[in-house]
């Protein structure tokens, strides 16, 4: 194989594309399916040689803000997160369009349609439109590699952050990518427009007008983009708009070329010129897009009295879930292949906590104590321990977003709930649990918080956890009484001690924190192997 051809995941193509585009820092919090972008940079010899910042951030908001700071200094910076991370970063993200960028700033959001490992199907393209930011959506890993460099260039040309949207099947699909040469990194330089970085109303009002005016430029960029391609076809009864990865599923059915006119969209704002041509030349327009009906709704509008638009909203394509080559065949009027029927013997095999995992011992002890309190409620959080909802534990009553366990337990306690118990992991606690803990301390809420500390960010593959070694200090620093910060070792032989501690802290009227601490067995195994090698 030639040196410039590499077998890369979509995530890795983005990472290498960014390094080759002269990146100076990546900022991220782990989240499936985005994690491998940062991990690739962390293990890249070129990134190390160039001193590219690649340490994990506490959460997506701190990541976004740090990247904005690096951009302020004229350097190229990238922020990576899963789609729901965009909600955490949203304040910084939306306002970064107002400050603009100095050095190129690219935000990569990896969406997870079909919720393979997420709590919703939100589509990050809406964030791009909301923030008035140019948005890219690659359909191949090669395109992802090349686009990230173009995104940095565009970002510097207009001094605007740029969003790149991936989906799971792009992020986690591997293929051969031909790579180019590495550009040098930017020199330090302060912004030429210092007022724009101070978002006081007087400055913001000026800036917002510019940002709105520049939408025409961003549209022209999209209309002239080599990534938005219109290919005419003989059968104009239906034109097809295929966005990002949906283009691959479409072309799977037409290896020799599609009989319908096709507009491949990989750069937004939506290229109006091409869409208008399709509306004029075709009797109807089918929209194939992974995630939510972002393009379809724009085409249809409220009045819906133009050309006939088909897609997720009209039922030609399923309203929810990721696209596949199979669930678009009806919309294309193709015959389904004759297939073996599903076997009736097959039963679901849900994921489970690993044998020997400390979360298991924590739930075993908690469940026994909770049985003594018929009305106990356990508010949980995002992490491996979310699996405590499934058999055999059935231990938790809620999972919403990063950090919500502590604040929901507090709200429930405010309403009169007792015992009101929060279960949160160490990494999730430092991501978004600490501020909620301060709320609880300030009101002396009657809650019991279990920070199940496995010394890592386990669910995403064992990344460093920001608060490792300092959780007790953090809790007492926030104001939890030292006597009510209790550390236990979650092992079957310590079951009685754990139960006793949980019982005592439920009975304590105030904020208490129990920290069952034992290293994730996957991480421990890896550490052991590394030591032996």
């Amino acid at each position: 194989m030639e040196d410039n051809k590499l077998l890369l995941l979509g995530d890795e193509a983005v990472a290498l594309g960014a390094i080759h585009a002269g990146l100076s820092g990546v900022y991220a919090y782990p989240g499936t399916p985005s994690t491998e972008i940062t991990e690739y940079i962390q293990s890249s010899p070129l990134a190390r040689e160039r001193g590219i910042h690649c340490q994990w951030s506490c959460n997506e908001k701190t990541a976004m803000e740090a990247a904005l700071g690096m951009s302020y200094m004229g350097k190229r910076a990238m922020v990576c997160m899963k789609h729901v991370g965009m909600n955490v970063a949203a304040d910084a993200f939306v306002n970064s369009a107002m400050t603009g960028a100095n050095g190129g700033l690219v935000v990569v959001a990896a969406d997870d349609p079909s919720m393979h490992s997420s709590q919703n199907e939100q589509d990050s393209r809406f964030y791009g439109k909301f923030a008035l930011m140019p948005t890219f959506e690659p359909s191949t890993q090669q395109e992802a590699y090349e686009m990230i460099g173009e995104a940095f260039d565009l970002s510097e040309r207009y001094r605007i952050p740029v969003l790149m949207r991936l989906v799971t099947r792009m992020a986690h699909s591997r293929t051969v990518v031909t790579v180019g040469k590495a550009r040098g990194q930017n020199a330090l330089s302060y912004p030429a427009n210092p007022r724009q970085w101070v978002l006081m109303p007087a400055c913001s009002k000026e800036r917002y007008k510019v940002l709105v005016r520049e939408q025409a430029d961003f549209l022209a960029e999209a209309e002239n983009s080599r990534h938005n391609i219109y290919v005419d076809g003989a059968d104009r009864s239906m034109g097809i708009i295929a966005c990002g990865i949906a283009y691959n599923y479409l072309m799977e059915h037409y290896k020799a070329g599609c009989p319908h006119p096709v507009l491949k969209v990989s750069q937004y704002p939506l290229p109006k010129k091409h869409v208008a041509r399709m509306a004029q030349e075709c009797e109807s327009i089918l929209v194939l897009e992974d995630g939510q009906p972002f393009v379809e709704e724009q085409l249809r509008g409220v009045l819906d009295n133009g050309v006939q638009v088909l897609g997720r909203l009209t039922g030609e394509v399923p309203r929810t879930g990721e696209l596949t080559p199979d669930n678009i065949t009806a919309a294309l009027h193709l015959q389904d292949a004759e297939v073996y029927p599903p076997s009736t013997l097959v039963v679901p095999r849900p994921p489970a906590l690993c044998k020997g995992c400390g979360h298991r011992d924590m739930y075993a002890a908690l469940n026994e104590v909770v049985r003594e309190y018929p009305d106990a409620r356990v508010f949980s959080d995002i992490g491996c321990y979310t699996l405590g909802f499934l058999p055999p534990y059935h231990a938790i009553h809620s999972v919403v977003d990063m950090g919500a366990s502590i604040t929901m337990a507090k709200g429930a306690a405010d309403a009169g709930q007792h015992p009101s118990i929060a279960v949160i992991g160490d990494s999730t606690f430092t991501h978004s649990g600490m501020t909620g803990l301060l709320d609880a301390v300030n009101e002396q809420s009657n809650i019991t918080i279990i920070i199940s500390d496995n010394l890592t960010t386990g669910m995403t593959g064992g990344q460093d956890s920001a608060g490792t070694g300092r959780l007790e200090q953090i809790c007492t620093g926030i104001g939890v009484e030292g006597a009510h910060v209790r550390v236990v070792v979650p092992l079957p032989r310590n079951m009685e001690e754990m139960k006793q501690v949980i019982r005592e802290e439920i009975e304590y009227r105030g904020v208490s924190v129990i920290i069952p601490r034992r290293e994730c067995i996957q991480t421990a195994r890896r550490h052991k192997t590394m030591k032996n090698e």
Partner: protein
Amino acid sequence: MTTDIILSGVGGQGILSIATVIGAAALREGLFIKQAEVHGMSQRGGDVQSNLRISSEPIASDLIPLGQADLVISLEPMEVLRYLPYLKKDGRLITNSTPFVNIDNYPDPQEVIAAIQATGHAVVLDVDTLAKEAGSARAANMVLLGAASPFLGLEVSKMEEGVRQVFLRKGEAVADMNVKAFRAGLEQGMANLAHGMPG
């Protein structure tokens, strides 16, 4: 030439290392490849699969359409059946015969094997025992790869070289053991081919 393969098993069994070896071999032959993987530790103990497509022509979709897989290769017998609707009518199932039972309602293992055999295009082998005979239960995935290798459309000798390459960084002994495991599987696959199974 196009070979569409679904790899399946239970999280932690190591299906991705099979994909890695096949992918590397296809790359050496200058073929196009697309491989959609499942990531995330939450899959541990749950069902996992990977779509691997290799072709002499460019590949459009990262996912294999229903009814189009030439092979479903599985480290677990019930998991091979999960992807039956993806198998071509004349496609082939290649699977470990030993169930991985981590759920209460696991079906009758004999019925599972019977359903696999009923397709008429199956290679069913006791991967775990063959791996232990080769030197380590951890080489199970290389036994399975060996059994599948006559059906991949790739040169078998190159596959074997690929196995050696992947494991050499763990030492000569580990590489030898995995090659031995690969050959044990290959023997079973070749026997199946020789018996004139349809497909």
